[in-house]
């Protein structure tokens, strides 16, 4: 479980949140909090990709349907970038289509959540992905 006492500015992990919906970014940000993580927000796929390359985050929370590069595009780019082998990915999708979910898992996502989701679920997926 997350432990506030071990978190310090030096060891804080970076999480990139990429979603074109501002309300969703606020929600995810509020859910994971800023005590344990250094949170960076991106409002479309292209911005997300440049921030990921810049920050080499521990975790990316990716909306699948985004303008510019889609969540799947970015996921594949992460998986084929040798600098990002440690980066974990959680997909957020507004589509309940099984095919979309399968495509995400096949492409190497660590986990996925369908909107609407429970913030508690997001936290447990995050802990799993980061092996906390």
């Amino acid at each position, binding site marked *: 479980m997350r432990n506030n006492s071990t978190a310090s500015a030096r060891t804080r992990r970076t999480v990139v949140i990429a979603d*074109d*919906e*501002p*309300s*969703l970014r*606020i*929600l995810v940000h*509020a*859910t994971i909090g800023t005590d344990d993580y250094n949170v960076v927000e991106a*409002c*479309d796929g292209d*911005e997300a990709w440049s921030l990921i390359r810049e920050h080499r985050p521990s975790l990316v929370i990716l909306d699948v*349907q985004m*303008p*510019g590069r889609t969540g799947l595009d970015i996921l594949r780019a992460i998986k084929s970038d040798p600098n990002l082998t440690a980066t974990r990915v959680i997909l957020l999708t*507004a*589509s*309940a*289509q099984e095919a979309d979910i399968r495509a995400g898992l096949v492409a190497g996502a660590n986990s996925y959540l*369908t*909107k*609407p*989701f*429970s*913030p*508690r679920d997001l936290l447990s997926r995050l802990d799993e992905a980061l092996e906390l």
Partner: protein
Amino acid sequence: MLRGIDRSDMNPSMMNGGAMYESFFSLSVDMLCVAGFDGFFKQLNPAWAQTLGFTDAELMARPFLDFVHPDDRLATIAVVENLAKGTNTVNFRNRYECRDGTYRWLAWTAIPAGSAGLIYAVGRDVTQEVRAEAVLKEANDSAATRLALLTALIDAIGVGVVLVDREQVVAHWNQEASRLTGIPIEQALGQPTGLLGELFAPRVEDNPSLQSHFERVSRLPAESFRFAMTVLEPRREVEVTVSPAALTSGGGQVGFVMVLHDITAAKELDRAKDDLIATVSHELRTPLASLVGFTELLLTREFSDAQRKQYLETMLHEGRRLTELINDFLDLQRMEGGYKRLDLGPADLRTLIARAVTTAGDDPRTPIEVDLPKDLPLVIADTNAILQVLISLLSNARKYSPGGGAIRVNAQVTGEAVEVSIQDHGIGIPPEALTKLFTKFYRVANGDRRLVSGTGVGLAISRRIIDAHGGRIGVESGGLGQGSRFYFTLRTASHGARSGDVLIVEDDAGFARLLEAELAIKGLSSVWAPDAETADQLIGQMAARAVILDLLLPGASGEDFLARLRASVGGELPVAVVTIKELDATETLALRRTAGVVAVLKKHSGAAKEAVAFIAEALTPREAHQ
């Protein structure tokens, strides 16, 4: 056994063969007779009594024609006359009466014995044969009729039909089958089924299972099956249903039928529906995610007041967005079959634009500047629908101008149309999005634009409305950051649309239509103005002879219009006031005393008829009253 005949009448040769002749005569199962040209039987064999049931005496007591069916008598007389002239008769048929009142068909072979004035005749009962022939003929006729009907059905039915006969050859290929496959009838008829696959191959999209389907077809399929193929030119989806044809009497298979069905439109509809459902569920899930997520967070964790406020505000915003989405979705559904019940009539754009600007409200950051030419002609429009379009375009212009900037509304006459344009200085539209903008649920893929709430339905509805008016709607933008210019066109009102006997000034389209109908019954034509401003313009152009006026109108009131009317034409023009407005006695009296006003009526179901009666009365020439 020669009866009833004087032997002296017989000729010698007959007399010579006496006994043998007599035996044959009485033994024959055929009906043998000797008759005279005088019309009476002279001699009959026993077959007569057996067939007809009459005794010889009865048969010989009356002219034989009496026993012949009335309908056959003329033909019988003709035969007898021919026999009298020496002509033999072979296989002549007529009906003879039986004792029980029925008739039997007899077939005759007869020869005349000229010198003796006698006829020797052999008749045979052919009733059964005639009946069988009739049944057969009827069957043939009905088979031919059924075939003709079925062929007409096959050719007229809106599906492709191919009939393959027992010899495995294409026996029928209807017009629709040709249209769907591009294979001409001449080319298809007579083709063995083994070659059908080759016939289709160049015209359909290759598909591994197609070959096996045609192989199955070539082996005279005994069970029905169905497959689909894609025809290339022009591209369409065709569903083929193969059904064996067997005789109902269990006589085995006589061929099979292939029915070709164009399922292109159905497939497209399916796809569009799937897309729409996917889009709608996607669009609904996003605001729901905020509502559910923040609610859970607020219930389970502590937040600062500022944070709590931000989250609650976001929830409120997303909740409203959800409502807006559902409303827009319902609007769009209503609009799917075209904008229903468009009430078209001449309309003054200036007042419509003014009303839309009023609805949009003041915002000093994005002031709306209206600049219209002085002599803007009337257009043909449904004022409520066009108002909706204007409000939607103005609200978009505001929404997508987060940095502020004036919004300009212009209009210009181009030929037979007026183009209205709304120009903003907002965030603009990337070129690749310009063409997709009027598609439902399309929202520009750009972070900035996404900050703006909206459902992407407003423009789709606007396009439907303008399309239904026969106008064009479009957008231009220099790109992101360059602002946008939305425009639409409406036809100007032609002279015909601006002329009539009576001007109806009424914002309720339904009541205006009722008045139009009542006036038409009285032989009066009319023009409908949905507001006083349109009426002001029309009155100067149309040389109306009377006015039916509502008082509660969206812009200037009916009273204002009446005052202007009095100032310009005095009391010349009869006016009937029909209004829902509650008028007290003083107001009613004042209206009644206004020059030209012939009636003041409360709007109710019979009011249209009443008002029109007053107008018709006022328009009747004086002489008619005398």
